[in-house]
């Protein structure tokens, strides 16, 4: 599938935002789903790269927020406005939204914020939703999307490892503190970030009996469930991140093996 690049911005440092015209993905995408992008036209890099869908806009565009981490994303960052992007999506299973729950806690580590903005937009369609964001990263330059969440009237908690913005420390620590004086029961937790962070978020949420969904990342071959390259160990054997996930109920994941 082709999707025209309408804009491609370097936000700060290694972070980029890509806007694509894709009526198909716009129409079908749910928060937490992803798309497979072909970052070049030659055989190197060979495989497509998976990216979560960051945002949908009424003009039938979608946005991808990404960080340059290697050869594929570096090449992607060179693609310019006006070009057609070769894209497959939406793929995978997104976040499950329980309509009975009005209190939502979104927890992101670094670029893990990408799928959570789309989720926040979807949650905010219910005017009774209360959204709380916990966003952690290494430095303040790695803290993204704060303005977007402010516009959604989310309560925002920030931490950085070097203390350059918000509280110094890990976001899981900030989340743990907030849990201490939490007495409401109807809360759902959604998280995306590094595996070590997700493991800790799962542990804290499970201890409080809170439902927790996590969006996992993996090297992918095909993105459509054929190659079996992206599996993670689940409670009932290997699960494919692409078609069984990328969003999993945190209780299904074998965290000790991740």
């Amino acid at each position, binding site marked *: 599938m082709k999707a025209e690049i309408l804009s491609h911005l370097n936000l700060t440092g290694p972070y980029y935002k890509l806007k694509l015209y894709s009526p198909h993905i716009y129409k079908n995408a749910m928060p937490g789903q992803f798309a497979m992008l072909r970052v070049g036209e030659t055989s*190197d890099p*060979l495989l*497509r790269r998976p990216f979560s869908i960051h945002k949908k806009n009424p003009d039938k565009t979608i946005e991808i927020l990404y960080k340059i981490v290697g050869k594929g994303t570096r090449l992607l960052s060179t693609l310019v406005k006006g070009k057609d992007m070769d894209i497959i999506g939406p793929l995978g299973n997104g976040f499950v939204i329980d309509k009975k729950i009005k209190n939502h806690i979104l927890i992101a580590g670094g670029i893990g914020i990408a799928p959570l903005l789309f989720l926040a937009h979807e949650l905010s369609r219910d005017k009774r939703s209360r959204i709380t964001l916990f966003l952690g990263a290494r430095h303040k330059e790695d803290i993204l999307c704060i303005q977007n969440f402010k516009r959604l009237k989310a309560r925002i908690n920030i931490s950085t490892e070097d203390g350059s913005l918000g509280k110094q420390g890990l976001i899981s620590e900030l989340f743990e503190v907030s849990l201490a004086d939490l007495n409401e029961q109807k809360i759902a937790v959604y998280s995306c970030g590094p595996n070590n962070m997700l493991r800790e978020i799962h542990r804290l949420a499970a201890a409080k009996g809170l439902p927790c969904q996590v969006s996992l990342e*993996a090297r992918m071959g095909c993105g*459509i469930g*054929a190659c079996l390259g*992206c*599996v993670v160990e689940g409670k009932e054997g290997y699960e494919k991140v692409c*078609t069984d996930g990328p969003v999993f109920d945190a209780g299904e994941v074998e965290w000790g093996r991740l």
Partner: protein
Amino acid sequence: MGEVIKGSRVRGQRVRKTEIKPDLSVNIAGIEMKNPVMTASGTFGYGIEYAPYIDLNRLGAIVLKGLSARPRKGNPPPRICETPSGMLNAIGLENIGAEAFIKEKLPLLRKYDTKIILNIFGDSIPEYVEVAEILDKVDGITGLEINISCPNVQKGGMVFGTDPVTASEVLTAVRNATSLPLIAKLSPNVTDITTFAKIAEDSGCNAVSLINTLLGMAVDIRTRRPMLANITGGLSGPAIKPVALRMVWQASKAVKIPVIGIGGIMTADDAIEFLLVGARAVQIGTANFVNPTATVDIIEGIEKYLTKNNLSDINQIIGRVVI
């Protein structure tokens, strides 16, 4: 296929243009295929995964993920990594087992007008025989491809596919266990591919397919750890195409049974190269990951090539490399 009249005949008076649609059909191992384009085992799941992207009826044949007599969990992750113009995989032959395949997947595939070929493997000769017997005489299965070459499982394919004696033993045993057409999928990790092609022919196999992946390795220099949990894996993709093409050429000259070419085929041009050196069909593997419509694109590209060169039959290019 034959002749297709393009344009309309007006009261039987005028035919605007007659275009010969080339005949792409081939017969491999007694299997009549509408074109020479097959999928490569392990890259096409159980077939259904690709139904949203292509019309499966267009394919010459679908070769499905390797099946063993019993389900198999596969290797721990990470299972894949990208390399220059290629990828390494060590999936570890994860599969649902032959019985579950017949019950859960085969009914979904029967409705398609294509040939279903099952790739099989085992850890021992009795296991190869067992899976062949389970699949023998099951409605909807056209043939078996025997994996004697998968490099990923220590006790698995490698041992059979790289030793002439065990290769012969396992192929003969499977031959005696089924009346289905048999394709032996050969390992490239040998000194002389023709030795193994001849062994397959002498064991009663109806065709050989080659090459399976080349054994490879990659290391993350930051962590100093191998990129794959299994340490080594099978290399596939455009990087291996010249090696595959050379081996297909050698094997085609060495045996009378059909040779199916596999290895880094991404485009119709790649597929035509294999046909020219003697392959009577091709399998498309890693390309399916990059481009889910690769198989159909390649079929259309081969057709265009024939039309452009005024050829009416695919057989007019098979083995016609000019040396």
